[in-house]
C-alpha cells in the first residue's frame, strides 16, 4: 500500500467521523495555538525589555562609580581621592576605546524642589555636563539643554523631565492643556533656578498603549457627558508617584532634573558638605567605542584611573551586562514555563489521538481482518494507522496555526497593556513540527496493536 493511498484512506476516515475527529484534533489545535501564542507573547516581552535597555544607552554604556576600598587597601583610606573631574580629563585623553565620558554629581540627600506652591523630591537630580544628554539618550522637546557656558558660569538653570513638571505644575490629564514650564522659576533647596528645557515624555510601547487607551476612554466619557470620572477624593497612590505603579527606566528618565555640574558643585554641594575643594563626582557615565571590546575598554579605564588614583582602587565598574543577562534569563524562563504548559497541552492532545485511534481500531477489527485476509501485511496495517493518526495531527496542527492568530487577537484584546505579541515563523514551524511528531508517536501503539491482530480472530469478530 503506497503512502499516498494511506493518506487518502486517513483523510476519508477523518471525514467519515467528522465530529469525533474535530474533538480529537481540538487538543492538538489548542496545543499548537497556545504554543505559538505563548511564543508570540514572550517575543513581545523580549522586545519590550530590550527597548528599556536601549532607553538607558544599551550595552555600550557603563558607569564608573566611587566604591569602598578593597580590604588590603583599607589603611590607605585617607589618601583615596574618589572619582573627580581629573579622571574625566585623563580618560578623555588616554583611553582610546572610550567614545565619551560624562561626569555626574548626584545631589544626595535629594534636595526639595518647589514651585507653583508645590514641593517634590526626585532621586534623579544631578549636576552634569551637556554631554549627558546624548549619554542617557535624552531628547529635549521644549526649550534647550543648558550649555557649556551655563556650566562654566555656574548659572542657576535646569532641565527637567516631564514627570517633574507633572508633580509641580500638574500633568496634562489634570490641567487639560500640557503645561510647558520653560522660563518658569523653581527652587532647589531654596535656591531659585530657571527651567530652560524639558525632555520629551518617555514611555514603553506598553505604557503608550495604556495611555492612548485611557485618553480614548476619557474622550468617550466626555462625549457621553460625564465630566468627572475620578472615583472618590484625590489621593496619592503610594510609592512611584503618578499611579502607574512600579519602577521602569522610562519613569526614572521622566523624573530627571539636570543642572550644570559647576552649579551643582558650587551652589548646592560645596556649602552643604565638608568635602574637599576638588569636586567629587558620584560617578562617570562612559560610552565605549565598540561593545565587543568592552573588556579592553575596561582595562584601559582601570589603567588610567589607577594612575590618577595613585594605585588606590576606590572605584568600581557597573555595566548593563547584568541587566542584559537578567532579560535573557527572564525571557528564557518565560519561554520555558510557557513552553511546558503548551507542551503539556500538546501531550494531552497526543493522548487524545492515541485514545481515539485505539477506539478506532477496536471498532475496525473486522476491517483489519478483511484487509489482512486479502493480503495486507502487518506493516501495511501499521502504516495505515500511523498515517491516520498523523493526518489527524497534521490537520489539527494546520488548524492550530490558523487558531493561534485568533487566540493572539483575543489575548491582545483582553490585555491590551501587554507588549504587542510578535508571531515568529520559527515558532509556527516548531509548533507544527511538534504536532506532527506527536501524531506519529500517538499512532505507534495503536498501530502495533492493530498490526499484531490475529487474522482469524479478527475475521470472526462481531
Amino acid at each position, binding site marked *: *500500500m*503506497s503512502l499516498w*493511498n494511506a493518506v487518502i484512506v486517513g483523510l*476519508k476516515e477523518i471525514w*467519515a467521523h467528522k465530529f469525533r475527529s474535530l474533538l480529537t484534533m481540538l487538543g492538538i489545535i489548542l496545543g499548537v495555538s497556545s504554543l505559538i501564542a505563548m511564543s508570540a507573547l514572550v517575543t513581545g516581552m523580549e522586545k519590550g525589555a530590550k527597548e528599556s535597555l536601549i532607553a538607558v544607552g544599551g550595552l555600550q554604556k557603563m558607569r564608573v562609580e566611587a566604591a569602598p576600598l578593597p580590604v588590603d587597601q583599607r589603611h590607605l583610606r585617607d589618601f583615596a581621592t574618589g572619582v573627580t573631574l581629573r579622571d574625566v580629563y585623563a580618560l578623555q585623553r588616554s583611553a582610546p576605546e572610550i567614545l565619551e565620558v560624562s561626569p555626574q554629581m548626584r545631589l544626595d540627600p535629594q534636595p526639595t524642589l518647589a514651585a507653583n506652591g508645590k514641593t517634590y523630591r526626585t532621586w534623579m537630580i544631578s549636576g552634569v555636563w551637556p554631554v549627558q544628554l546624548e549619554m542617557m539618550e535624552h531628547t529635549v522637546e521644549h526649550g534647550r539643554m543648558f550649555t557649556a557656558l551655563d556650566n562654566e558660569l555656574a548659572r542657576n538653570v535646569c532641565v527637567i523631565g516631564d514627570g517633574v513638571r507633572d508633580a509641580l505644575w500638574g500633568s496634562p490629564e489634570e490641567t487639560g492643556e500640557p503645561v510647558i514650564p520653560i522660563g518658569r522659576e523653581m527652587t532647589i533647596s531654596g535656591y531659585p533656578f530657571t527651567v530652560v528645557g524639558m525632555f520629551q515624555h518617555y514611555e514603553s510601547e506598553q505604557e503608550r498603549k495604556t495611555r492612548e487607551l485611557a485618553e480614548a476612554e476619557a474622550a468617550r466619557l466626555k462625549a457621553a457627558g460625564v465630566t468627572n470620572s475620578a472615583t472618590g477624593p484625590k489621593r496619592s497612590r503610594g510609592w512611584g508617584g503618578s499611579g502607574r505603579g512600579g519602577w521602569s527606566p522610562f519613569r526614572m528618565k521622566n523624573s530627571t532634573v539636570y543642572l550644570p555640574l559647576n552649579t551643582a558643585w558650587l551652589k548646592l554641594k560645596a556649602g552643604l558638605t565638608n568635602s574637599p575643594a576638588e569636586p567629587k563626582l558620584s560617578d562617570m557615565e562612559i560610552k565605549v567605542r565598540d561593545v565587543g571590546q568592552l573588556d579592553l575598554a575596561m582595562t584601559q579605564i582601570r589603567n588610567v584611573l589607577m594612575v590618577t588614583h595613585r594605585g588606590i582602587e576606590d572605584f568600581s565598574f557597573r555595566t548593563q551586562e547584568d541587566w542584559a543577562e537578567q532579560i535573557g534569563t527572564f525571557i528564557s524562563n518565560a519561554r520555558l514555563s510557557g513552553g511546558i504548559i503548551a507542551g503539556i497541552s500538546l501531550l494531552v492532545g497526543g493522548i487524545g489521538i492515541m485514545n481515539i485511534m485505539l477506539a478506532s481500531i477496536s471498532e475496525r477489527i*473486522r*476491517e483489519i*481482518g*478483511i*484487509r*489482512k*485476509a*486479502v*493480503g*495486507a*501485511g*502487518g*506493516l*501495511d496495517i501499521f502504516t495505515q494507522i500511523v498515517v491516520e493518526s498523523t493526518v489527524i495531527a497534521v490537520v489539527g496542527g494546520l488548524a492550530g496555526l490558523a487558531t493561534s492568530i485568533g487566540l493572539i487577537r483575543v489575548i491582545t484584546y483582553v490585555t491590551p497593556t501587554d507588549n504587542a505579541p510578535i508571531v515568529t515563523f520559527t515558532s509556527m514551524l516548531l509548533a507544527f513540527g511538534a504536532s506532527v511528531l506527536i501524531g506519529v508517536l500517538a499512532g505507534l501503539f495503536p498501530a502495533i496493536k492493530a498490526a499484531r491482530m490475529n*487474522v*482469524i480472530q479478527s*475475521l470472526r469478530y462481531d
Partner: protein
Amino acid sequence: MALLELRNVSKIYHLGGEEIRALDDVSLDIGAGEFCSIIGPSGSGKSTLMHILGCLDSPSRGTIQLDGTEIQRASTRELAQIRNRKIGFVFQFFNLLPKLNVVQNVELPMIYAGIGGRERRERALKALEQVELTNRLKNRPSQLSGGQQQRVAIARALVNDPKIIFADEPTGNLDTHTGEVILALFRRLSHEGRTVILVTHNPEIAAVTPRRIEIRNGKIADKVDDRLAGLDRTPLLSGAGH
C-alpha cells in the same frame, strides 16, 4: 505434483492445560483445477483445515506445500503475500468493507499487491464483468442485495488471478435461489480451470462438487457420508445455468 499437499498436518490448541486437536494427522492432496468441497459438522475441524489450507493459520505439526512452496514455516508477512497472490477468499458474511464502494472493494487486494491505479481499475472492472455485476459500481455494499454482495466478494477473490479460491459457506447467508446462482458461478470458475474449494456443513451444497472431503473430529473420514452418495446432484443445478 499436486497444487496443495498436506502431510501429517496437526493443529493443536491448549485450552486450560487441556490439549485440543482441531486437526489430527491429516494428509491430503488437492490437484490443480479440482473442484472439491470440505464438509463436516461444526466443530469437526473443517474451518481449521480451511484456515491452514488458506494460509490464514500455520499448522502445529506437519508440512504443507502450496504450488511447490513450503508454507508451514512461512512468516506472517510471507503468508500475507501468499494470500494476496495465490489465494482468493469468499466468506459467508461477504466481508466487504462497508465504507468502500464496489470497485474500491474489488481493488483492495491489488492495493496490497502494489498495482498502480489505472491497472487496478481495469482489472477490477474485468473481474466484475466475470461475475456479471457491471451496473452498480459506485454503490456501497449496504446498498446491494446479498447475492450481489457475494458476487462482489467473488470478484475481489478473482482480481489477483489466484490459483485457489476458497469459499467458506458462500451460500450460508443467501436464499436458495441466489445460492444456486452463486454455486453455478463457482462451477463456471472451475470449468475455466481454477481450483475451487467449498467449505460447508450442508451436504446438498457439497453435492455439486465432484470431490468431497469429509472431516470428522479433526480427521478425514474414510468414506463419504451415505446420504451424500445417494444424492443426485443434477436437480440442484437445474435452472442455475449461465
